[in-house]
């Protein structure tokens, strides 16, 4: 099993933000969801992988090769979708295709036309005349039409209606039937990733908090709900974070066996969604920051 993407100890500092020792791996044939709140560094990591910005230290390998030394052959096999449209706004869609296509060795016009038909995009309209959703659809069509082996997407579903989001996820799952393809998908709409991601990497304030399979995550974390009376300082220690309302508490824990042992049936333990985990961990860090 090859690693299609290997990020090791990446550091990048800006004035008021920095990436610290960011590391994670994506194996060939899987989908990795890259989650984190806004400003956590998701776009920065993607720009680093694509060598649009320069890292201070660390290494990045794509398809097993260094991402700078073999930049060209790597990018030939990467389909990218950025959250801000990066294509020429002044040109018509077919013109943009004619500009971009020659730069990919595996460009497939039939495939491109198939996506254009499927997404119902008007080829002879200028890009700036399209709605945000349609611009995104165009980006997606462009990214997929050269049969990429790695698809990198930065918030591709933000601003898309739920119908198209479902359509896109279907499309991606269909692509993944080919076990030589991989997808790296950053999003803060975690419900999409809940459905299709195999691995989840969580970045927060420039640091990777975890990078594991979705199964592992939903099995090792638990949302504990119970009455306030059950809480004491001792128990709070086995919670990552706890919120209380007048009617009870809800907490995130990594120690399900212990909680079961302590409370038995007097609490409910549910499988957490990615959003639950993200929100609780964010609040935990904020609390820790305030203390």
């Amino acid at each position: 099993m090859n690693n299609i993407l290997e990020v090791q100890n990446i550091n990048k500092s800006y004035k008021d933000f920095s990436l610290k020792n960011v590391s994670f791996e994506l194996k060939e044939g899987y989908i990795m969801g890259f989650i984190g709140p806004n400003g956590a560094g998701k776009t920065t990591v993607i720009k680093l992988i694509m060598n649009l910005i320069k890292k201070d230290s660390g290494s990045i390998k794509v398809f097993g090769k260094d991402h700078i030394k073999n930049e060209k052959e790597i990018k030939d096999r990467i389909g990218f979708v950025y959250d801000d449209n990066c294509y020429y706004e002044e040109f018509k869609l077919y013109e943009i295709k004619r500009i971009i296509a020659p730069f990919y060795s595996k460009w497939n016009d039939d495939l491109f036309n198939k996506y254009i038909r499927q997404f119902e995009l008007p080829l002879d309209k200028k890009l700036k005349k399209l709605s945000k959703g349609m611009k995104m659809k165009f980006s997606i069509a462009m990214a997929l039409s050269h049969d990429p082996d790695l698809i990198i997407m930065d918030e591709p579903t933000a601003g898309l209606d739920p119908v198209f989001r479902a359509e896109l996820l279907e499309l991606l799952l269909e692509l993944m039937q080919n076990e030589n393809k991989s997808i790296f998908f950053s999003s803060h709409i975690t419900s999409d990733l809940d459905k299709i991601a195999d691995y989840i990497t969580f970045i927060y304030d420039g640091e990777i908090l975890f990078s594991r399979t979705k199964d592992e995550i939903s099995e090792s974390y638990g949302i504990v709900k119970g009455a306030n009376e059950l809480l004491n300082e001792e128990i709070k220690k086995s919670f990552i974070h706890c919120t209380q309302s007048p009617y009870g508490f809800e907490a995130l824990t990594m120690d399900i066996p212990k909680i079961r042992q302590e409370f038995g049936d007097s609490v409910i333990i549910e499988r957490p969604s990615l959003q639950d985990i993200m929100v609780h961990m964010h609040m935990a860090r904020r609390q820790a920051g305030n203390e």
Partner: protein
Amino acid sequence: MNKTTWKIILKDFYITRKIWCLLIIPYLIHFILLEALITSSTGKSIFYPYLCSGLYILILIACAQYLDAKHDFLIHSLSIKRTEQIRAKYAFVIIMGLISFLLTGITGAILKKTGLSIMNFASLTDLMLIIAMLTATTALTIPISFLIKALWGLVANISILLTSIFVILVLPIDITVDSINPWLLLILQIKKLCNNPHNIYYFFIISFALFLISYLLTNKLYTNKDL
């Protein structure tokens, strides 16, 4: 100059193709008008047509430059290295200069055949002048576009363009100036210099040298830039 660099140059031709069509008309009119003006006043044809066509070509270059500098995310997410982009941009200038020179020469030759012009077909100094003008301009504007900001590069190109047009068109060729306006004096000096073929030669050498230095510097700095 590898395959990708040529692809970028072809792309730049494709991107600016509408402007090509739009520019040919004012260029021809301008050429004919100017030619008629100059010939009638001095009895001989000089280099102005070549210089003017160079200016129109500058518009094309400015557009291609601006579009690519603005879409750097896109360009470098494709299989395009930083050095290939820079090399393509500088090469584009030279190629455009040559094309402009050929087009002007051919236009002049046709007009001469129809009797509208007495302009001689190209001489080496004409070629050197166009190249010198384009290289001098872009030596400055390419680094601005790619290293600083695309919009500023465009502004720089337009400023140079407007100044040049002002220099050539607005002021008559032979003028005795009584005022001590330094700006006017500078322009006159430039015109005097340009009238002398020897000076054109020096102008070309210096421009081209600046152009090469600019290329090396921009290449180095752009490779390490955060986009």
